[in-house]
């Protein structure tokens, strides 16, 4: 049951436990490890029925690249949305975007990134097709080459397996 992914998760949860306790001593570390193992065990056995570490494995470099690009895009799109609000002449549209990603986790992270980016909200996800609510002047098409922002996310998330 204990594999490399599970050990990494236990270390991460213990670090969060230490952070929440704002103390670093033997008791806090041991109680952190204890609660991490218990929570991971119940997640595997009761909630998922499979190994959490294998189902939701995201490499650290992928998540770091994803977060950095996401924060950059959030601020960039946020600034471009200001004139639209001030002018007040906006229209919305709903477009279907077909993503080449295969992993359900990667598609969910892409939908999450789209909703976090100001000016776009993912309304629905059906397999590889995402219905996106956006401003009328946003250039979102089915062609990943034209929709450069999303294709960059897809490059980052492409390494994730389903």
């Amino acid at each position, binding site marked *: 049951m204990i594999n490399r992914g599970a050990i990494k998760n236990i270390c991460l949860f213990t670090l*969060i436990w230490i*952070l*929440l306790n*704002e103390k670093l001593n033997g008791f806090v570390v041991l109680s952190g490890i204890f609660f991490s193992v218990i929570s991971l065990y119940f997640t595997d056995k009761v909630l998922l029925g499979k190994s959490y570490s294998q189902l939701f494995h995201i490499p650290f470099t992928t998540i770091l690249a994803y*977060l950095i690009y*996401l*924060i950059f895009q*959030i*601020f960039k799109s*946020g600034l471009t*949305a*200001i004139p639209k*609000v*001030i002018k*007040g002449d*906006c*229209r*919305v*549209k*709903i477009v279907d975007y077909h993503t080449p990603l295969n992993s359900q986790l990667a598609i969910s992270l892409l*939908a*999450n990134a789209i*909703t*976090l*980016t*100001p*000016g*776009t*909200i*993912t*309304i*629905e996800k059906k397999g590889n097709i995402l*219905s996106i*609510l*956006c*401003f*009328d002047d946003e250039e979102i098409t089915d062609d990943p080459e034209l929709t450069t922002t999303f294709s960059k996310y897809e490059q980052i998330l492409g390494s994730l397996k389903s």
Partner: protein
Amino acid sequence: MIFLWLGRFFIIFSMIFMLIGIIGLFRFKDFYLRILISAKIETVGLLAMLIGLIILSGVSFASLKILLIGLVLMFTNPLASHAIARSARVNGYLSPWEKIDD
């Protein structure tokens, strides 16, 4: 001293952003436009506020906790916007422009 001003800059930036968002909420009458604007407030405004607070707190447990709050928000925040927009769509709410096109 530079960190103090940088932190203040981010907090003031976030407050200006939230103010513009609130103006947008009152100005637009369409539900879908309003939800796009409110999603903008909660992402850009809140993130800028948290970055400002991290800079002001310096290297401490408090700033790491704020970072943790930011990470949790980044993964859970879109769910609310998605759920509200989806429920409107599923229940057949049309924006004024869709009604005109029909």
